[in-house]
C-alpha cells in the first residue's frame, strides 16, 4: 500500500461522481445561499453611502462607490495593509514550520509522556486572553519589545492549535515510508524534510489557512502591544476610522471589511487546493 497508489489524480473519482451532483445542489444550494446573505447585506450597505446601517434605505437610495473611494483615500491604509501583510506572513511561516516540527514529534510518540505533552500544549488554549493579555503585556514591556514588529510576531509564532492539528493528522499517517527510509540509513532530518513534510501537505495547508485567518483579523493584541500608527495593522486601523463611542460608520466599516476579507479569501483559494493534492509527491524517494 504505497502512497502512490493512494491518489490517482482524482480521475476515477471524477468518473464516479459525474452523475451524482444533482441531489447535492438541492440541499447544499440553500445552505450556501444562507452563507451569502450576510455578505450580500454587507456589500449592499457598503455601496449605499446615504443609507447608514439600514438595509431598507440601502435598497432604495442610489448606489455609489463613495465609501470605497473614501477607504482608499485614507491616509494610512497602505501602511496598515503592509503591516498586516508582513506580520501575517511571518506568523504563518513560523506557525507552519513549528507546528510541523512539534506536531510530528507528538504524533509519532517520540517523547515519553507524549499524551501529557499534548494535553499540556492544548491546555495553553484554555485560559481566555482577557486574563492573559495584561501579563503578556508585562512580558513584552520587560523585554522592551512594545511597539515593535517583534511584539506582533514572536508571541504568536508557535501556536498550540496548529500543533494539535498536525499531531492528530500525523496519528493517522502510516509510518512505513519513514520506517523504510530509516532502514535504508537516512538521517532523521532527511526523513523529516523529504518524506514527512510532503506527506503533511494537506494539514499544513489547513494550518496556513487558519493561521493566516486568525492573525489577519486579530484585533486585541495588535491594539495593546503597538502604540504607533506606523506599526498599526488593518483591523485596528479600520476600527479607528469607522467607530466612534456610540455609533458606527456602517458604510465605511462594511467597505473596509469587504476589502480586508479579500486577502483571506485569496489565501484560502490558494491553499485549499493543497488540501487535496498533497500525497503524491511523497512517494518518490
Amino acid at each position, binding site marked *: 500500500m504505497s502512497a502512490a497508489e493512494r491518489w490517482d489524480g482524482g480521475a476515477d473519482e471524477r468518473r464516479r461522481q459525474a452523475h451524482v451532483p444533482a441531489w447535492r445542489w438541492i440541499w447544499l444550494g440553500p445552505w450556501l445561499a444562507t452563507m451569502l446573505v450576510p455578505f450580500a447585506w454587507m456589500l449592499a450597505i457598503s455601496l449605499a*453611502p*446615504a*443609507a*447608514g*446601517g*439600514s438595509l*431598507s*434605505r440601502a435598497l432604495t437610495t442610489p448606489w455609489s462607490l463613495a465609501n470605497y473611494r473614501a477607504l482608499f483615500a485614507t*491616509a494610512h491604509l497602505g501602511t496598515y495593509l503592509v503591516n498586516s501583510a*508582513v*506580520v501575517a*506572513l*511571518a506568523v504563518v*511561516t*513560523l506557525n*507552519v*514550520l513549528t507546528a510541523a516540527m512539534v506536531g510530528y514529534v507528538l504524533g509519532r510518540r517520540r517523547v515519553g509522556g507524549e499524551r501529557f505533552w499534548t494535553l499540556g500544549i492544548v491546555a495553553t488554549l484554555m485560559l481566555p486572553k*482577557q486574563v492573559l*493579555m*495584561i501579563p503578556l*503585556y*508585562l512580558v513584552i*514591556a520587560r523585554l522592551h*519589545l*512594545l*511597539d*515593535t*514588529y*517583534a511584539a506582533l*510576531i*514572536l508571541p504568536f509564532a508557535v501556536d498550540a492549535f496548529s500543533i494539535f492539528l498536525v499531531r492528530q493528522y500525523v496519528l493517522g499517517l502510516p509510518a512505513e515510508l519513514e520506517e523504510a527510509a530509516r532502514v535504508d540509513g537516512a538521517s532523521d532530518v532527511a526523513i523529516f*524534510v523529504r518524506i514527512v*513534510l510532503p506527506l503533511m501537505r494537506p494539514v499544513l495547508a489547513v494550518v496556513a489557512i487558519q493561521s493566516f485567518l486568525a492573525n489577519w483579523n486579530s*484585533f*486585541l493584541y495588535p*491594539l*495593546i502591544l503597538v*502604540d*504607533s*500608527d506606523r*506599526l498599526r495593522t488593518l483591523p*485596528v486601523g479600520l*476600527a*479607528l*476610522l469607522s*467607530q*466612534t*463611542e*456610540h*455609533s*458606527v*460608520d*456602517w458604510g465605511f466599516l462594511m467597505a473596509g471589511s469587504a476589502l480586508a476579507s479579500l486577502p483571506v479569501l485569496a489565501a484560502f483559494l490558494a491553499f485549499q487546493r493543497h488540501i487535496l493534492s498533497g500525497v503524491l509527491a511523497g512517494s518518490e524517494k
Partner: protein
Amino acid sequence: MMRSRRRAGAFALACLAILGGAALSCGRAPSTEVVFWEFWPAEIVQPLLDRFEHEHPGVHVRLEQLTWQSGQEKIAAAVGADHVPDLCEVGSTWMPRLLAGGKLAEWTSSVEDLRPELRGWSLCSIGDHAYGLPWVMGTRALFYNKTLFAKAGLDSTKPPETWDDLYAAAEAIQKLGGGVHGYGVQAGERYILFKKFMPFAWGNGGRILSDDQTAAVFDSPQNLAALEFYLKLRDVGLIEHQDELDRQFKDGRLGLEISGAWLFKSIPRDAPRLRYGVALVPRPDLEHGTHASFAGGEVLVGFKAAKQQAAALQLARFLVRADNALALSIAAKGVQPAAVAADTAAYYREHPAEQVMIQQFETAVPTPNHPAWGDMEAAIEDEIEQALLGKKTPRQALSDANQKLAQLVAKP
C-alpha cells in the same frame, strides 16, 4: 524541494522583518516629547497639537489614537505595566475606579485658576482634589421627528415639555401604524439603560445616593413615579437596542427617542433628508421637577508614573481652553466643550439643535463618584430591566435595587 526553498526564503524574510522592526523602534527622541493617548480621529486633534507646539517651542506631542473598542483594556494594561502615556483621555465612566486606584497625578494646586472656567469637575475629583481636567462633556436629550409630528397632527415647533406631553405625542405617532412607533425605549444593553431611565428619575427629584454617599435613597416615591411613567411608555413605543433605535429614528420610523449628540454627526451622513428637532428631556409637569439628563464626558488625566508631568499638564490646560475644546467639539460633533465660555460661541447660535445640548447641561446630573459605582450601576440596570421586561413590579424592582445599593455603599 523548491517548496522548502520558498519556505526558507519566507522564514528569512520573517527574521528580517523582526529585526527591522526592532531597529525601527529605536528612534531619536526630540527635546521634550509628550505622549498623548486619545480617542478622537487624528485629523481632528492634530491641528490642535500643531498649534500647541507652535505656542510651546521645544515640546513635541506624539499622538497615539485609541479605539473605542477595547480602548480601556489598553489603558488598563498600560497602567498596570506603568508604561503610561504622559497625557491620556479617559471616559467619565472609568474615572471612579481610576480615582480610587491612586495612580493618577494630582493637579489640584496647578488648576485652581481653571475652576470657574470649566464644568464637570465632579468627574475627575475626589472632594476638592482634582486628578484631571474635564475636556468635553456629553449629555442626552430628546430627539423628535418633525415629519411624523406633522403627520400625527402635532405642532412640530412645540416639542413635548412635560411627561404628559411626551406620552400624548408618542401615542399620536404610534397610532400612525405602518411600522412607525412613538417612543423608543432602550433595553437589553448594559451601561446604556441607566442613561435613558435616570433622566426621568432625576427630573422628578429622585436620587440614587444621599449627598454624602453614605446611604442609598433609590427606593423613593419620586423614583417610583418615574419608573411607572417610563414603563407606560412601552405601550406607545418600541423596545430595542440603542443603535437599532437610532437606526429607526434615522429611517423616519421612530417619532421620539432620548439619544446623544453623536446623532449630529450620523444623521447628516446617514439620513440627510431627515427633518428632526432636539428638545430638553421632558419634566414631570410645568410646576415640578427639572429637565434632568445624564452628564458624562471625557477627562484628561496624567499619571504619577509618566515621564513628562509638567509638559503634560501644559498640554491639558491648552486642550481644555474654550477655543480648542470648541474646535474639537465642532469637528467631532458628538460632544460639547467643558469650558463654559464656549456656550456663547457663534457656532451654537447657528446650530440651535446643538445649542439644546448646551442648555441641557444646566440640569444634567453626573453619576456618584463612588468607587463601587460600576457595581451600583449594574444593580440599578438589572432591576430596571426586570421591571421593563415585566418580570418584577416597579415597587419590587426599586426595593431590590436599593437593597443592593445599600450593601455596596457600606463596603469601604
